[in-house]
């Protein structure tokens, strides 16, 4: 199967200003790829290169097996720009119909269904739409022609939590039908629940690509155990993967790397009355990458 995105040493400079440096990345069909990084890291630059809004300085990129420059390639992509601008007296529905015609026709029923899902009022002139409603219109136009590949730049920006849930559900449906989604965000929490893989971009460079399931397994997890009676500290010492151990009477606090198996087996010998395990914070891992990156920068002055 051809990769949906095949980027080879993709590089973009705006004059002398760096946009993106040596991006090599493959995105496979049917996956949801979360593209993460702080503002100005090069996320939007990457997405614009995939859509031929801007042209690479060096390197190459193929999308769905074709060149982004070919209209036929872009016909198979849906795109939500990061700073979507909708203006004018036109009603949103008229604009969506126009975009639909330019894409070779989109059934009105599909636009209506999406509008209903997102609870969007399309009869309002676009310049009067609120930020959140503009984002809804942007999402509708990105999904309405049922593209094979959906590229979303900060899709959840401005959406209220209910609509965000609806959006994430839609993204999962797209994956279920074998199609591919690439979405950027500067907040991991927004994409971690749906993404199969996340790429972390920093200062124009892709610093890590991680499988979300693997990341979760690697994640540091805080665990608290409470027992019916005081436990001997020795029973929990030197367990594989267990760190920062603190045994105080009948309670045990620690953090675990990876699997909690050894800890659970050690605890099973006693009567457990209460167990608290926080959901692994991927944000923390993300920040770890981030601070490592900063560290590197200090070592090599620009």
């Amino acid at each position, binding site marked *: 199967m051809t990769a949906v995105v095949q980027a080879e040493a993709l590089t973009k400079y*705006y004059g002398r200003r760096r946009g993106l440096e040596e991006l090599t990345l493959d995105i496979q069909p049917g996956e949801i790829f979360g593209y993460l990084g702080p503002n100005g890291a090069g996320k939007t630059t990457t997405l*614009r290169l995939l*859509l*031929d*809004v*801007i*042209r690479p300085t060096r390197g190459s990129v193929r999308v769905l097996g074709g060149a982004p420059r070919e*209209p*036929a390639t*872009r*016909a198979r*992509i849906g*795109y939500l*720009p990061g*700073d*979507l*601008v*909708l*203006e*004018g007296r036109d009603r949103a529905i008229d604009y969506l119909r*126009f*975009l639909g015609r*330019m*894409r*070779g026709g989109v059934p009105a029923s599909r636009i209506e269904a999406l509008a209903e899902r997102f609870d969007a009022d399309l009869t309002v002139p676009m310049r009067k739409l609120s930020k959140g409603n503009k984002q809804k219109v942007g999402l509708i*136009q990105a999904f309405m022609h049922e593209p094979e590949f959906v590229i979303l730049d900060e899709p959840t920006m401005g959406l209220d939590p209910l609509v965000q849930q609806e959006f994430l559900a839609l993204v999962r449906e797209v994956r279920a039908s074998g199609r591919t989604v690439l979405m950027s965000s500067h907040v991991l929490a927004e994409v971690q629940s749906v993404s199969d893989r996340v790429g972390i971009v920093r200062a124009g460079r892709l610093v890590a690509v991680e499988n979300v399931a693997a990341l979760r397994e690697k994640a540091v997890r805080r665990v608290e155990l409470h027992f019916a009676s005081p436990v001997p500290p020795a029973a929990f010492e030197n367990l594989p993967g267990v760190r920062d151990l603190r045994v105080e009477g009948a309670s045990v606090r620690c953090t675990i790397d990876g699997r909690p198996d050894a800890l659970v087996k050690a605890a099973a010998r006693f009567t457990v009355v209460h167990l608290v395990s926080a959901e692994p914070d991927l944000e923390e891992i993300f920040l770890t990458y981030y601070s490592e990156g900063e560290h590197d920068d200090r070592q090599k002055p620009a």
Partner: protein
Amino acid sequence: MIARSLRDHRRPLIWWSIGIGAFIALYLAVYGSVREDPEVYGPAAVAKFPGPLRDLMGGMTDMVSGAGYLQTVVYQLFVPMLFIACATLLANRTLAGPEESGTLELVVTLPVDRRRLVLDKLAALALGLLLVAGATFVIAAGLSALMETGVPFDRILAGHLGVLLLGLFFGTVALAAGAATGRRVVASAVVGVWAAAGYTVVTVGRSLDAIAWLKWVSPFHYYAEGRPLYDGLPAGDYLVLAGATAVLALTAVLAFDRRDVGV
């Protein structure tokens, strides 16, 4: 895409037609009193104006005959300049404006070839200007007949065609500059400088040998030199204007095809 662009332009198109039409109507309505008092507006009166001002208005040798009045007041400076302003504003609304506001980004990601996009925008611009020219022509020809200027219909048509070609030329200049830079200010500046300098060269500057040769790059030379209101359609001159417009259109297409949009 063409229909959409025209729809986007409909308000300015209507207002420009009304504006230019009102200007023509107003001045043609005054012609009645000019014709009745030739002494007041005749050569003696015109001679009171300073020479350079007369040059700027195309010599003002004849303000009393229908053709002379029409030429000086309507077709010499004001209507062409209004038309150029209209064309520049419309052209700026097609590419540079949307690029600056950010709406162009989504449009270039549609499955439409960039070259095709520019050609569609140019076609919409041409059609829009044709509508304004058509509406104002009806007013000019109608009132000219009503006020009995004695200028034949086909001469006014020839003059008005020149206005359209001139507007189209500068509109394409604006569109090409906007397509190449993505900035309305640049596009407007290019038009402004070229139009002002071009007009000066063929009027005040024609007696200055040092700059007289510049008339060859002034669109106004091809617009006015053939005296369409007196002598009918100057086909050769108009073809030069149209040809230059086509070259500019090609430049716009090629320039936009190579560019990063919105950065």
